[in-house]
């Protein structure tokens, strides 16, 4: 087996699994006032501090959610509502067109149901938003911008955005900027405190933590309107009884993600480079998606377009040989459609159907790369015979 779909989800770290199981037998609602509640609350707060440290944020800036999708929705919808409530003129939302669907569809929904005007920022051939384009978009009318949202790194092609520069531009105009950092955390330095961001999304299961847990890092001056109303947990921004085992486990994974980031970038990045070389040797006309320069892309991402192939065919052929990868983001799995990310970068729609994303992670080995090196040539040859139906 060669599991090369870590961007979809990565195996749980043993330390995180241990922290999770250790908590499963312990009773306590973190909102309760008695000893059991206090014990649970302490676990939560320690985890909050750990995660804050891993992301150089303040503990009060960590708002736990059920995962990346919820955090993205809370940031996009919540900030839109609160900013518009404060000034009805603020109805413009600026977003990159290469966002994950959790952001893209939330933004789209605001346009359909909340009277928002959605403006997609231009991106270059690598899918990167340039600060001057954000500046131009805001400066056209700084008073009507509710928020801007640009992901830290792209989940399909791995392109890293100039987040600090973008945040500087947004801050100049007093516009809150949200970044989905689900893919970036653990792979590139993600420093919320220094970033200038208003809000930032992270997820547990992408860094070796459990499913169903994530966080929105939220600047203390922001009070987004909640998506979930209830008991008032998490700064009254996100109600719901906290999942103590998941939070504790997430914290362990977050600490390790930060501690091992340099090792990950170096070692896994080197494996990724080997994989890129191997694929290009086997299929000389394969096109590497995203930024080819090492500093411009996630160290674990290798995205290819194979002209004349359907990604679906390649996936089936590789899957049959125990190589697990993706045609794009896992959420697009099901019915094949050209990736919105590739279309935004100006890729021809026919070409965009022939993509594969290999994403490495902490368990990746040379053997995984060798398996791909051996299988990809014949698979592409065969998939080309099947063609584009």
């Amino acid at each position: 087996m060669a599991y090369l779909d870590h961007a979809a989800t990565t195996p749980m770290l043993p330390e995180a699994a241990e922290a999770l199981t250790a908590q499963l037998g312990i009773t306590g609602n973190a909102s309760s006032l008695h000893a059991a509640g206090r014990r649970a609350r302490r676990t939560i707060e320690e985890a909050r501090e750990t995660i804050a440290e891993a992301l150089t944020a303040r503990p009060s800036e960590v708002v736990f959610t059920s995962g990346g999708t919820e955090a993205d929705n809370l940031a996009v919808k919540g900030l839109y509502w609160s900013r518009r409530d404060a000034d009805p003129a603020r109805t413009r939302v600026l977003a990159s067109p290469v966002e994950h669907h959790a952001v893209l569809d939330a933004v789209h929904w605001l346009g359909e149901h909340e009277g928002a005007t959605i403006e997609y920022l231009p991106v270059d051939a690598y899918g990167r938003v340039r600060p001057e384009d954000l500046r131009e978009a805001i400066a056209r009318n700084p008073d009507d911008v509710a928020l801007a949202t640009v992901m830290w790194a792209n989940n399909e092609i791995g392109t890293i955005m100039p987040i600090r520069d973008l945040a500087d531009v947004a801050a100049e105009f007093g516009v809150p900027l949200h970044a989905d950092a689900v893919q970036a955390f653990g792979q590139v330095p993600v420093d919320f405190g220094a970033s200038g961001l208003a809000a930032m999304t992270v997820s547990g299961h992408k860094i070796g933590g459990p499913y169903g847990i994530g966080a929105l890092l939220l600047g203390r001056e922001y009070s987004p309107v909640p998506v979930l109303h209830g008991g008032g947990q998490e700064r009254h921004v996100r109600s719901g009884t906290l999942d103590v085992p998941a939070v504790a486990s997430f914290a362990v994974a977050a600490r390790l993600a930060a501690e091992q980031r340099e090792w990950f970038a170096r070692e896994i990045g080197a494996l990724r480079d080997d994989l890129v070389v191997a694929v290009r040797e086997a299929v000389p006309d394969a096109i590497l998606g995203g930024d080819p320069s090492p500093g411009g892309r996630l160290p674990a991402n290798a995205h290819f377009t194979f002209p004349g192939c359907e990604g679906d065919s390649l996936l089936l052929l590789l899957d049959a040989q125990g190589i697990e990868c993706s045609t794009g983001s896992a959420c697009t799995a099901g019915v094949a459609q050209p990736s919105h990310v590739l279309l935004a970068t100006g890729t021809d729609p026919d070409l965009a159907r022939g993509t594969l994303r290999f994403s490495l992670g902490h368990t990746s080995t040379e053997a995984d790369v060798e398996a791909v090196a051996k299988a990809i040539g014949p698979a592409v040859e065969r998939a080309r015979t099947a063609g584009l139906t």
Partner: protein
Amino acid sequence: MTETPQRNPRPLRVLAAMSGGVDSAVAAARAAEAGHDVTGVHLALSANPQSFRTGARGCCTIEDSRDARRAADVIGIPFYVWDLAERFREDVVEDFVAEYEAGRTPNPCLRCNEKIKFAALLDKALALGFDAVCTGHYAQVIVNEDGTRELHRASDMAKDQSYVLGVLDDKQLAHAMFPLGDTVTTKDEIRAEAERRGLAVARKPDSHDICFIADGDTQGFLAGRLGRAEGDIVDESGTKVGTHEGAYGFTIGQRKGLRIGTPAPDGKPRYVLDISPVTNTVTVGPAASLDVSGLTAVKPRWCGAAPSGPGTYTAQLRAHGGETEVTAEPVDDDALDVTFTNPVRGVAPGQAIVLYDGTRVVGSATIASTRRATASVA
């Protein structure tokens, strides 16, 4: 146990088309049980070009896709969804609309087998290294000693679907697998088998309607595509007896929904005898005028060599239709002249005529025109 092992002694790489229904699920399960290396594929045939996921939800086919996936899980085979929506739109839906527009009555299931399941899908399957495509159709493929293949009616005549497969040629048949075809069993028994195999689709209702017209309103679908075109309904003498909103909305032999104001002189029900798209006229008349003595069919396809002269066969003229004795003779290379031993009622151009020798499918062709027992109608 009613499960019958495959005739083929050699394990094959099989691509099982799984619609999400009970038949294709049981067929895939039987193929896997027979030792073949089976991969399940659900064909996404309904295009939805919206790029936003939120807007792309709510289609009934997502549930079918899920049901197919769950069946594949239980059988223990890989499963994928393939998007053949564009091919389906071109080859089946547009053909369906064009045929109705031309005053004919198409059979989209047959067209789907011919152009999608045993063409687009089969071609892709073969290119990807599969040996065969497996479906839940009720029909039998029998391999002769010399390696040639014959398509036969299912063992259970009541469920036989060889009619909608009659259009397949030798090459297509060579890679077709119908694991349900040799089962003499009721639908309840297939459902019981599904239940026994742990397939959740065991109790799923059958689908009978045209899959791309979700609400079953074919007239509404056609009206939406072709627009309203009011015209006359006339009797056999040419006298106007009513109006219609589009000649495409009718089928030869249709009785219901004519909404004719003027009653027939003899007070008996009237039927659609002819549809003329050129003049946008629908001709109606008594049941006796529906009797045809013969027909001309085009685009014949033969299972094996084409017959050199006239022959006597049994014929089926519509899905779920009965058998009738005919004499058929190829005319030129691309037509077939058919004479019925006894007149047949209500034959609709656009439908297929499938010729049988006993249970064996000899060939098929598309009905182009009929000869009325009394006078010829185009």
